[in-house]
């Protein structure tokens, strides 16, 4: 197992502790290669930082507008189905 192959497959698997022969080879390589270990660690930290990143809750005003749009859409479509473009139903 080379650094290049390890690079390719650690990214596929990351935290999935698969027990395939290839994963065993990757783990073996990682044990003996500080460079690949540091790289895997930095990739894991990158993912963790983005996973922890905050996405805002839906604002109450956006929820209200959505409900209104959907309501309008449902009554319009019942009158004249499949006539309107996606933009027309918006606020």
């Amino acid at each position, binding site marked *: 197992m080379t*650094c*290049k192959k*390890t*690079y*390719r497959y650690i*990214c*596929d698997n990351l935290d999935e502790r698969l027990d395939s022969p290839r994963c065993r080879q990757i783990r073996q390589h990682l044990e003996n290669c500080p*460079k*690949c270990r*540091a*790289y895997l*660690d*930095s*990739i894991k*930290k*990158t*993912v*963790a*930082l*983005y*996973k*922890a*990143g*905050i*996405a*805002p*809750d*839906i*604002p109450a005003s*956006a*929820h209200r*507008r*959505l*409900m209104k*749009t*959907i309501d309008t*859409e*449902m009554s319009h*479509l*019942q009158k004249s189905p*499949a006539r*309107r473009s*996606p*933009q027309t*139903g*918006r*606020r």
Partner: protein
Amino acid sequence: MSSEQLDTATDRQLVRAAKTGDKAAFTSLVRRYEETVYRFSFKMCRDREKAEETLQDTFVNVYRKLGTFDGKSKFSTWLYAIVTNNCLMKQRRRKMQDLEDPLEEYDDPPGTDSSRRRSSARWDETPADQLITKELRSLLDRAIDSLPVDYRVVFVLRDVEGRSNEETAKILHLSVEATKSRLRRARAFLRDKLHPYMTSRERERR
């Protein structure tokens, strides 16, 4: 459906009822997924106004296309495909040049002969969520903003939303191999953007 039935119904049951014209069932689906759609849109476009616009367009599309949903995949997979498509259309209108950048240089590990990328020096411990500074937050935003949208969508679906390779491939109409390759490049791209900040020597200089 009664309000109690709406709360306990599966997505499949709600879809079936909504298809027969049950407005309450459709509204229930919207309530169930509006937060997911809004947050996903925000993670993709990093902008509240655009996220709201995408939210509205997505559910209007879902309502209009519900008749074509055949139930072969999960409702959430189908929904992700619609919201992703809306996000991509908006992004592509803004940044056509994204499509010309395949990020091929991220196919090799850093520090090898074939790679011009920065070395694999060790990173410091990453700060806990509550300690993410304004500076790091802005760096994270800038990095993902500069990631071409076709890669960003794979990264957000796989690593942030936690969808599987197979589901991500299905949502994006890609092969699993292509999904994995884009994910590898996207992770490497973002990692390289954060690298200077995350290695102590660079951080001490600030």
